[in-house]
Structures are given as structure tokens and as C-alpha cells.
């Protein structure tokens, strides 16, 4: 059963030391933010800094999540796949912080202003759309939901992450005022991650891997 449907593999939900390490590490940006907040180190414009940091970490975790499959292909380390769900949920966690900052500290829950912003500004709309794309993925991330949806449909649904990463980048490009260096770097990373997934590249990656040192089989 688990060989056919690896995402139903009970062991995928088991505790491992690696998972614990990643779990704690992924909280470091939040901890640093809180620390900086208490030490007057978030700069003059606190709300803007929180928005920027949380937005960037959302994007980074999306990219890290999307890097799991290429990483497995390139290293042959299949255990890394077990980190994927947690990393994806962290992307959603930082997206929630980012979105809440906007709703609360930026708009003060003024629904008229919120609707106006959504209607008038494409980068806000695309950011919001990205959040809406991530929402069903987070909601169906539990073991129970995986089972209920069934492997095929669940997998199909979770392919939305490819779209979400794209719209997240569009959001970043559209909010940038003049200096496109940073969004371009993220674009390069995302494009490379997509290219590494191309089936056409698979034989090439396998050949490359066998020429380098033998794959680790940890995890």
C-alpha cells in the first residue's frame, strides 16, 4: 500500500530528529522578529518591517518547499520528502502573519479601505489571490484530509503550489518601485527549480548523480 501511495505512508507522519530540527529552525525568523521588536531593532517603520520580513519569509518557504523534489532528484535522498509538508505549512504560517499585519496594522480592519485596496491595486489583489491559493493546501494538509480526498485528487490539488509561487512573485514584482534586483533573484531561483523538475532533464540528472559520489540513503 505505502509503496504505491507514498503520501499515505504512516511513517511520513512520524517524528524524527531531523523534523524537530527543521521545525525549530523555521521558527527562527519569527523569534528574531520578536527579539528585534523588543530591542528597538525593527527600524523606524515597525509595521513596514514586519510586512517585509513576513512577506519575504513566505516566499522563501514556498521556494524551499518547491526545492524538495529537485533536491531529492539531485541527491537521491528520498527522506527529504518527509519535510515537505511542514515546510509548506511554514510558508502558510508566515503568509498568515503577513496577511494579518496588513489586515490589522495596515488597514485596522476597515472593510471599506480593504475592499478599496483590493479593487484598486493589482499587487494587493495578486497577494490576496496567492493567499487564497495556499489556503486549501493548508486546510487539506492533514493526514485525515489526505485520506478523505484520495491520493490522486489530493496530489492534483496540491499542484496549486506551482501557481501560488508564480503569483507570489508577480506580487513582489508589482509592488517593487524601482529596484528589481531582489525580485529578479527570486525569479531566477524559482525558474531553476521548475527547470530541474522537467522530465526531459531526468536522465541527465541521473547520469550526473552516478558520476558524483554515491547517494546518501539517510532518512
Amino acid at each position, binding site marked *: 500500500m505505502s509503496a504505491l501511495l507514498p503520501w499515505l505512508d504512516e511513517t511520513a507522519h512520524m517524528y524524527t530528529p531531523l523534523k524537530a530540527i527543521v521545525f525549530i529552525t523555521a521558527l527562527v525568523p519569527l523569534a528574531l522578529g520578536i527579539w528585534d521588536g523588543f530591542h528597538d531593532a525593527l527600524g*523606524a*517603520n515597525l*509595521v513596514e518591517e514586519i510586512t517585509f520580513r513576513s512577506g519575504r519569509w513566505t516566499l522563501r518557504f514556498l521556494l524551499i518547499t518547491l526545492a524538495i523534489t529537485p533536491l531529492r532528484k539531485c541527491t537521491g535522498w528520498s527522506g527529504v520528502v518527509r519535510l515537505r509538508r511542514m515546510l509548506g505549512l511554514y510558508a502558510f504560517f508566515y503568509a498568515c502573519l503577513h496577511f494579518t499585519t496588513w489586515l490589522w*496594522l495596515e488597514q485596522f480592519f476597515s472593510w471599506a*479601505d480593504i475592499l*478599496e485596496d483590493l479593487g484598486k491595486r493589482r499587487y494587493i489583489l495578486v497577494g490576496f489571490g496567492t493567499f487564497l491559493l495556499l489556503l486549501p493546501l493548508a486546510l487539506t494538509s492533514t493526514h485525515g484530509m489526505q485520506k478523505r480526498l484520495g491520493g490522486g485528487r489530493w496530489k492534483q490539488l496540491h499542484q496549486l503550489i506551482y501557481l501560488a509561487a508564480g503569483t507570489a512573485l508577480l506580487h513582489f514584482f508589482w509592488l517593487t518601485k*524601482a*529596484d528589481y534586483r531582489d525580485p529578479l533573484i527570486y525569479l531566477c531561483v524559482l525558474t531553476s527549480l521548475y527547470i530541474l523538475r522537467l522530465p526531459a532533464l531526468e536522465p541527465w540528472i541521473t547520469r550526473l548523480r552516478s558520476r558524483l559520489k554515491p547517494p546518501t540513503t539517510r532518512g
Partner: protein
Amino acid sequence: MLIKNPEQIRASEITPEAIYLDRRRFIQRGIGTALLTAIPASLASAASRYSTTEELTRLKDITRYNNFYEFGTSKGSPGIHAGALSTHPWSITVSGACEHPGNYDLADLIKAAEVEERIYRLRCVEAWSMVIPWQGVPMGKILKRFAPTSKARYVAFRTLLRPAEMPGQRRDILPWPYREGLRMDEAMHPLTLIATGLYGKPLPNQNGAPIRLVVPWKYGFKSIKSIVSIEFTESEPPTTWNLQGPDHYGFYANVNPAVDHPRWSQKKERRIGDIFKRPTLPFNGYAKEVASLYTGMDLRKHY
């Protein structure tokens, strides 16, 4: 007026922010006359009627949160990189429609005795604001010396172009050098200031040392920094952000809550140090002084 010229102020004379604030409190309460003698004379200026009594933004925030793309596009970059800029010697080229064009040394332009303090609100186009105690000279006083002719309908300014010391200029994020301009009546308005200091000290480099414009009723990007050229022109001069994004940034750029920036609303602003926003006032709260400059103009069109 006892505020000294930047060059004449020694480090030992520089007043800590805390004393500066105390001094202001004394003055505001009108009870500090006797105590003022104990405070460095360079700061004992009378409050201008144009000054606001709102709470000052912290010096730390004024000097660490800057839009000065010549030193990088993030807010922290100018505070980090601007130290490398050398501002001595500094001269300013005056040209165009005036009777006394030429190359003027900074010390000849700004007479120490004329320097006064103005506490102004500064509203950035990015919907944040500060309250800054500037030291400077009303620009009208300075411009008059060059005897602009009847052809002078606008004044154009340019920032220093020195990529070796201004790393942001090595990349073409903006068409360098930075340019700004004012209509003649705006430039001559008593609120318009040429600033050489803030918080009683010479301007920090990241705030536009050694000499910058301060036009408090316009978005911050109009208040051009580190000026090396003043030119009197007959037609409206090109301005940097207007060249960069004509539908985002107009020539006038008067603070106007009724005209949104395409990327954000201008109805509210965040005063630096606050969490929540406050309403933005027309002309940044200086409507009484300047609204008459624009009678008959459609400010939605001339944003």
C-alpha cells in the same frame, strides 16, 4: 540668531538629543528663560511661527530611515553608506535666468547669522511621516541675491553626481543626477527652506548634507538633497520621479489625501513611531499658508 555654520561646530559642541528635547520643552512652556543660559547658545533660537509643536520624531529614526537612492534603495542604506561622502569643499552652480550666475561656495551662500529653526512635518509619498527640527534659511532670501529676471518662472535643482562616493548611482535605477524643481512662487514662499542642519547639528549625510531643500507641503521627494546646482528656467523643468513614473509622480506633488498614488492610498499616513495610521491633511496641514498658490488649478490633474 546664533546657530553656527556647519563647519564651525566642533564635535564637543554637539548637543545630545535629550538636552535638545529638554530645551524645547522649556521653550514650549515659556519658563525656561533663566535655565536657557545653561544650555549651549547655539540652540537658543526662538520658535518660528511656522514651526509645529507636535512631538518630534527621534533623531535615530530620522537618520536611519531614509529615501536617498544615491546610497541604495533600502531605507537603511543611506545611513550605512552615506558616511563616505565628502561634503567639503562644496560649491553650488547658479545659472539660467538671473543677473548673478556663478559658482558659489556654500559658506558664501548660507550666512550663519541667518540660520533659523523650523519644525516641520515631512510627509513621504509612501504614506509615512515625521516631524523634524530643521535649521536653515528661507530659500527666498537666498534666491533673491541672484536677482532672477522676469524670465525666471521655475527653479531647477540638481543633486551631486559622484558615483565613486554614491554607490546607488552606479546602477541606473533612476536617471541620475536627481533633479527637482519648483515654480518661482513656491520657491519664494516663506515656508520653503534651504536646510543645513537638523536637531541642532549639521545635516547628517544621509539627510542630504550639506545643503538640501525642504518644502513641507509637498511629498518628500520634492525636497531634493545634496544640491550642487540651482537654475532659473522659463519652462517647467524635468524632475526625476516624474520622468521615472509620470502617472505616479507629478511635478507639483502637493500632499493631497484625495489623489491616490496608483499603488497605495494617500488618505492616511503612518507617523514614524506610531503603529496605526492617522488621516493625511491637504497640503500636509499647511493649506492655510499655501493653498492660495494653486487657486484655479485642478489639483487632480496637476497632482
